[in-house]
Structures are given as structure tokens and as C-alpha cells.
């Protein structure tokens, strides 16, 4: 069984700045594997341990991304693949899915693609559905539990939505996105981190993937990018003791008509 896990590198937190050219400045913020993708990776590694085959960690990005792919290898991915090209710099989500779909087609023998429910920076959750449609495979999004997995056959999962849990199945190959509840990702051992430190994953470019400018063009132009409007200055509630503060707080809440 060949599992591909799509990983995105993201800043650990979102305290990013906006450059004058409207690109995002995440300088000085540690880069990590998108949290939800780490759950996807753990899921792929576990299936691989159970069913055998291989798990390929796949990422689209600059050579800086190799760090995250090495971490994936240290966790237990058997292969890593970086899709990198200067023309990939401004991909929107659907174009990124187009790049990943081309690579997955080129790999050829993939049974399932797993990724996180969304990235913590872009937060759209559109990647997995877009990838599934481009590959022509069924999609299972927001998976919180895998109930049955028959390699070469079908998969049955629980989709954890806002208020309900759906039990859904489909034939493989399929694309799946996972939520945080699905497992507990492992920490790679220092020994394993050392062992993969020098690995240079293969890099495929746009031309390797047969992609042209039209495939990569974003659907929209960024017209404006600003920080959020500042919140009105707050008020500190003072008082001689806790009871007095609480009374004053409740007065305010009634005045604001929020209770």
C-alpha cells in the first residue's frame, strides 16, 4: 500500500507581519509542520506499520521545507518528495492541489492521500477537496476515526462535523483529511533525527510535472492585505475586593446588554 501524506510548513504562531509588497513576513517565527498535517502523517505511519508498503511525505515549497520533510522521515515516513519551483511561490489553494495532483499521478501507484483538515495559516480547508476532484477520487474530509481499512479495497471512517458524526465509506484510492482528535503524533527519537539529517529528498519542478503557467496562475489578485482593525481600548474593573469588582463587572455587562 502506498500512502502519500501532504505536509505544509507553517509558522508556529500567526504573529506575522505584512510587507509593503503585501507578501507575508514570518521572519523570526519558528517553522513547523502544520499541526493537522502532523496528525495525517502519524495516521499514515501507523497504517504503514500495520499493512506494509510505503508512506511518502510530500510538500510544496522552497528548499527550506526540507527540514519538515526530514522530520517526517524521522517520525517514520519511508520516502520524502519536495515539489519546488520558483513558479510555485504564489500558488492559491486550488493551484497547489493541481501541483500535488500532478506529482501523485506521476508517482502512479498511490492508494490514499492523507492531509490535515486545514493549514493553520491559510485556514481554508480547500486543499483536500480540490486534490480529490483533480485526481478524480472520492474524498473523506474531517476524519476523526478510521473504522475499517482494506488495502486495495475500501475505507470506512467517521467524519466529525460540528454537531454530528457521519459514518462514511468509499473505495480506494481516496483523499482523506484528518482532524486533531484522530491520534497522538509521536516524537521522533534523537537517533532517528540524526539518521535522516543528511537526506536530500528528490525535488520535482513544474516541468518535471508537466505544469504550465496557466495551471499555476492564481484565480484572484490580492488587492489589499491589512492587519485587523484595533479593538477599542478596554477598561479595567477596580474595586476594594473581589465582591465589589464582580458587582461592577455585572453592572457593565448589563449596561452593554450582553447578558
Amino acid at each position: 500500500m502506498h500512502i502519500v501524506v501532504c505536509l505544509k510548513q507553517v509558522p508556529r504562531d500567526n504573529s506575522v507581519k505584512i510587507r509593503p509588497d503585501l507578501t507575508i513576513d514570518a521572519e523570526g517565527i519558528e517553522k513547523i509542520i502544520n499541526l493537522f498535517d502532523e496528525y495525517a502523517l502519524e495516521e499514515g505511519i501507523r497504517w504503514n506499520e500495520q499493512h506494509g508498503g510505503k508512506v511518502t511525505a510530500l510538500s510544496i515549497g522552497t528548499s527550506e521545507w526540507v527540514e519538515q520533510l526530514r522530520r517526517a522521515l524521522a517520525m517514520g515516513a519511508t520516502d520524502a518528495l519536495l515539489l519546488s519551483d520558483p513558479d510555485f511561490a504564489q500558488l492559491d489553494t486550488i493551484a497547489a492541489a493541481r501541483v500535488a495532483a500532478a506529482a501523485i499521478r506521476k508517482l502512479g501507484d498511490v492508494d490514499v492521500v492523507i492531509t490535515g483538515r486545514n493549514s493553520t495559516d491559510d485556514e481554508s480547508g480547500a486543499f483536500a477537496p480540490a486534490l480529490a476532484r483533480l485526481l478524480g477520487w472520492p474524498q473523506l474530509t474531517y476524519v476523526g476515526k478510521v473504522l475499517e481499512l482494506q488495502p486495495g479495497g475500501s475505507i470506512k471512517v467517521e467524519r466529525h462535523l460540528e454537531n454530528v458524526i457521519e459514518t462514511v465509506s468509499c473505495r480506494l484510492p481516496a483523499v482523506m483529511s484528518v482532524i486533531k482528535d484522530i491520534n497522538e503524533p509521536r516524537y521522533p527519537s534523537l537517533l532517528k533525527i540524526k539518521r535522516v539529517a543528511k537526506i536530500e529528498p528528490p525535488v520535482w519542478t513544474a516541468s518535471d510535472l508537466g505544469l504550465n503557467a496557466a495551471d499555476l496562475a492564481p484565480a484572484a489578485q490580492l488587492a489589499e492585505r491589512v492587519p485587523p482593525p484595533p479593538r477599542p481600548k478596554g477598561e479595567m474593573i477596580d474595586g476594594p475586593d473581589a465582591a465589589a469588582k464582580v458587582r461592577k463587572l455585572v453592572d457593565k455587562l448589563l449596561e452593554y446588554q450582553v447578558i
Partner: protein
Amino acid sequence: MSNVLVILEAVGDDLAAISRELLGKGRQLADALGGSLAALAIGPTTAVAARAGQFGADQVYTVNAPALAQYTTDGYVAAAMAAVQACNPALILAGTSFQMRDFGAALATDLNAGLVVDATDLQVEDGAIRATRPSHGGNVINTYRFAAGKPVVALVRKQSFPEATAQPDRRAPVTELAVANLNPRTEVHAVAPKAGAVNLTDAAIIVTGGRGLGNKDNYYRLIPPLAEALGGAYGASRAIVDDGWVPYEHQVGQTGKTVSPKLYIAAGVSGAIQHLAGMRTSRTIVAINKDPDAPIFRIATLGVVGDVNEILPLLTEEIKARLNR
């Protein structure tokens, strides 16, 4: 290509609030584009399809089939494609839920359309659609301009637009569309309510606890009772979810839920940037923390410096007394 198509959702016997929002905004945008406003009801939602006319739709389409009794990506995308063929929309509007994200991204991909998820504003400028959406936990507000000539699928964040008001005498024709060979590749075996589901996203009042409470017992002794006294829901910071005090369902923040209630009370929550990402757009934010330098105070509307274990029981009692609960 100047029409707007709204994908309707139902709650019980009525249109969902988000659908009334979308019909209101859709009406404006259709007028600005010089087109008409269509609405699509899929599967069980067809029962409330006729209501869309009262809220501003010029034309209502329905697609119904046994295979559409439950949501599937294939079924809903096929139904939407039938409506797209019927009205050739420039803009397709739906709400932003997990299900609609699954649907909207698939539809946009099939249509080779533009896509915006979590839109908080939509405008027409020189015949082109402009869409605003937050990213990076609300720290970045992006406005995109989509070139005319290609449709745009916009998933709108709840409570971004006022709900349209009903015009009881207004009617729109309802046309049933047929979809051939509806054969979803995913099979839905069961749809069960989530045990102990917390609808944090829809709650008007949320009380959230953090590590400042000291331990799990204090959390359950203090946070749910206050939430209950206020008729609200209770949330948790990532730190205490990771520590196993409270299930993930309750987590507010970058890797949990994004909420925007009218009142958000953060008790013993320091206000890590990951937490602020999930609640910074709340209307009134109350912070209670013993550390006067806690970052949560920077975005609080009302701040109380003090020990949550002392303040919360008093607050719950005071609220019960003042609200006669």
C-alpha cells in the same frame, strides 16, 4: 454571466439564518452585477425552497433524489452543477461549515472557478467580485479581486451580513431540476448526533477556562456553572485540552474552534496568540486573570485582575441573583 446563486440550508422547517444572510447579500450583489438572484435547495432542503422568494430570490431551483437524503460531495456537486447550467452564475454563495467547505472547494475545482472560504465581505467593483477573508488567525485581512468571466464560489462566514427580512407577498418560481446518474462514490451509513456536542460556534455567550484555574476539578466546579447561569457554552484553552482536563470539542483557538460570540469570558486564560486567533472578533471580551500583564488584557473590553478561584463563584452567584436565575 451576471447572476448570483445561493445554496440554501434548512434548519427544521425554516431556512437557516445563514441562508437569509446570503439571500440579503446576494440580492445586493445581483443588483450590482445587473443580474438576477437564484437559490438552490438540495435534498431535504427542498421543503423550504419556496421561502427563498420571500427573502429576495427571483428564481428557486430544487434538486431532489433519494441519493440526496444525506450530504455527499458527489451528490451535492452534481446538484449544484445542474443549477449552474440553468442560471450560469457569476457568483455562487454558501455558508462556511465543514460540510460546505467540503462541497464548495470541490465545486470550485470542478468549475475551474475562483474560491474564497470564510468570506467576511463581498463587493462588486467594475463588474468584478471583490472578496475579503481573514487568514493567520485573524491577524491578516485579505481582499481578493477576481477577474470577470470566471465564476467565483464564495463560502461566507456566519453573521457577516444582516439577514434579509421576509416580504410575505413576494414569490419566486420554483423549478425542479433533474440530475441524471446520481451515484455518489461515498456511502453514508449513519449520521449520529455528537455525544456531548458543544455548539461553540453558534453560542452567543462563551465562558472559557485556562490553566490559571489550577486543575481539572476547579475547571468543572467553576466554568460550566457560570456558562449555565449565563445560558452559554463553555470553552477551553489548548493548554488544558492538551493536559486532558477538557475534551477537544471545547477548544477555542488556532487549532480548535473559531468563535465570535456577543460575550466571551476568558477566565485564567493568559491569551496566547493561538488562543486569540480563535476569539478576537468576539463583541465583548471579559478577561479575568491574576497576572495584570497577561496578553489577554490587551484585547479585553473589560478586565478584572484577580484570582479566578475567588472571582468566578462570586460572579456566578451575582449573575444568578441579577438575572433571577
